[in-house]
């Protein structure tokens, strides 16, 4: 178990390192910088700006240009090598800052650090995500088991049809439709925003709905398979009640595919929350993620992506442990 924990932690670090590297180079090498849209300023001011936001690596540039001089290169080749040196130095400095827990300044939201932005928005996203996660798993498992027990009845068919419907309708349709019906037509729930308990109901439901359906379908087919197995017949034969057979024997086995879906579920909820947060005007990380790409706000983007990845890798780890606890045959590797 210790070896397993250790290996998992190493994987976590490796994933975060890769993600940081990829994100950094993608955003730095992309055309268009964070200051492009603003009014042209003089070269010295722009240079000061770039130094302030650490978008310039003077030492690396000097090394690159020195190397070019040694090789006898001039003109554009020299400038390119200098630029490469500058970017490499920025990358090194960025990793160093990350090691110290500093996610740097946002280039768009002036004078706000990425740590501060994430500190404010992460709890919001986490609350919404956790609620939707709980909802999706409990409702999905119950509905799926329910449909499996009433196999080949109208109830089963109805449940499965609504499940397919829920999978087919994207959240950005259900979201505005729910607003139209519940908030604007009947006025029972608020249109959006954040801060009151009533404001979280609609977003959580909308975010969870497709995954309730997906888990219900998964659970139903797995439950049907389990109910046909010998140990269930044995349990029935020894006179256990229907509910005891179902909840104490069959459910434990049938739930395994659902448990292994929890990792991908978390990933999907994360992506889905980006949309739900924009639809319901929730001040979570999703909106900042989308804007950081559009604004070429590299450090904010990097910070958000790092948080996403750490969350997901940890959740996958927890899923594996849960799987191990439920199914002793599984070897942790």
């Amino acid at each position, binding site marked *: 178990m210790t070896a397993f924990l250790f290996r998992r932690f190493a994987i976590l670090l490796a994933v975060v390192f890769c993600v940081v590297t990829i994100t950094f180079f*993608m*955003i730095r090498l992309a*055309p268009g910088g964070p200051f492009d849209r603003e009014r042209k300023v003089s070269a010295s001011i722009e240079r000061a700006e770039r130094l302030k936001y650490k978008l310039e690596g003077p030492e690396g540039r000097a090394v690159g240009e020195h190397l070019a001089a040694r090789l006898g290169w001039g003109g554009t080749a020299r400038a390119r090598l200098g630029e490469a040196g500058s970017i490499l130095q920025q990358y090194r400095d960025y990793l160093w800052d990350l090691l110290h827990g500093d996610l740097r300044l946002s280039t768009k939201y002036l004078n706000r650090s990425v740590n501060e932005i994430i500190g404010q928005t992460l709890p919001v996203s986490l609350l919404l995500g956790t609620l939707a996660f709980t909802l999706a798993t409990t409702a999905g498992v119950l509905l799926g088991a329910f449909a499996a027990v009433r196999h080949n009845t109208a109830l089963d068919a109805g449940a499965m049809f609504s499940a397919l419907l829920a999978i087919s309708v994207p959240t950005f*349709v259900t979201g505005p439709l729910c607003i*139209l019906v519940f908030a604007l037509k009947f006025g029972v729930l608020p249109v959006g925003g954040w801060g009151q308990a009533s404001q979280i109901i609609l977003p959580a439901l909308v975010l969870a709905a497709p995954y309730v359906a997906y888990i219900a379908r998964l659970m139903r087919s797995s439950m049907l398979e389990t109910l046909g197995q010998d140990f269930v017949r044995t349990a029935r034969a020894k006179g256990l009640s229907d509910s005891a057979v179902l909840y104490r024997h069959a459910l434990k086995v049938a739930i395994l595919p659902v448990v292994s879906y929890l990792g991908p579920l978390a990933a999907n909820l*994360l992506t889905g929350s980006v949309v739900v947060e*924009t639809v319901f005007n929730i001040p979570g990380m999703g909106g900042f993620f989308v804007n950081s790409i*559009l604004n070429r706000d590299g450090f904010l*983007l990097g910070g958000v992506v790092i948080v996403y990845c750490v969350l997901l890798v940890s959740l996958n780890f927890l899923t594996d442990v849960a799987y191990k606890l439920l199914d002793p045959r599984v070897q942790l590797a």
Partner: protein
Amino acid sequence: MDALPDKAAPVPAVGGSAPLAGPSPPPPTNPPPSPAAAPAPAMRAASSPLARFWRNPAVKIAVLILALVGGSALFGPLLMPARYQSPTPLQLAPPSFAHWLGTDLNGRDQLYRVFIGARISLAVGLAGALISFFIGTTYGLVSGYVGGRTDAVMMRAVDVIYSIPRLIFIIILINIVEQPFHAWLQGKVAASSSEALRSLPGYSKTLILILSLGLVEWLTMARIVRGQTLVLKNLQFVTAARSLGQTHRKILTRHLLPNLTGIIAVYLTLTIPAVILDESFLSYLGLGVDASQASWGTLLSDGAQAVNPIKSSWWLLVFPAAVMSGTLLALNFLGDGLRDALDPRGK
């Protein structure tokens, strides 16, 4: 460990695949009817997967819906008079006889926009699913056929990719690659005399979208194909082919692939709605198809903004939503129907 247990149950091969050159398993034939117990007509129909597929009423409705949507996407814009294609002074008009689905903020006819949106969304869905089909099938075949350590590593990689937010990386990728790709395409086709080729750079974002969504959605296909290959490669017809000196490449393409057509058809059908959903998700956030080209995602994005407490233009949201959801539902039903027909145990 595998994140999902593979559906390793052998699926009966679908008849009608390309004639096989080498030895292959006999097609599933009905047992010769014995005079003593002639099978009831229903039983005989049930033994053919295709017949079972067509008897499913949900499948018939799904095919009808898809034909309707596909047909109107292809021919609808051509049948509408040209005046519907341009903006009119009639802004945000509710559905009427002149504009069946109303008009949008710029006075454009919503029906025409939905037709055009269907073209882009369906094209992206089909092309993206095809790309994912090529990647997924190749990956799964190789992984399952080679087996052993290679298989373990390849499947572990799939597990890892499964649980990262792939769309988030796609968003970053699209936004970064788009401008250089556009410039490159512009340079390539600028000198071309063909009108169609010269309009291509306008679609550069859509092209990248298709490619990257294809790169995202192949995982399920790879898993399923690999599971089936693991089962099939141990059957006698593969051993026979190998003992006759058939190359691995030939065994993969001539013997294994034809036996996988059924299961591949199922997951190809199920990948199309997934890709359409992804596309509309990105377009909704303003990161997918260019706003100038309507896709269902951009229409829904406009529709969602039109729903507000002051004046709700519900028709901008409801009609694209209905068409898109209907299409996705039909595709999902079709895929499920195919799967049930091929694997009756699940029923």
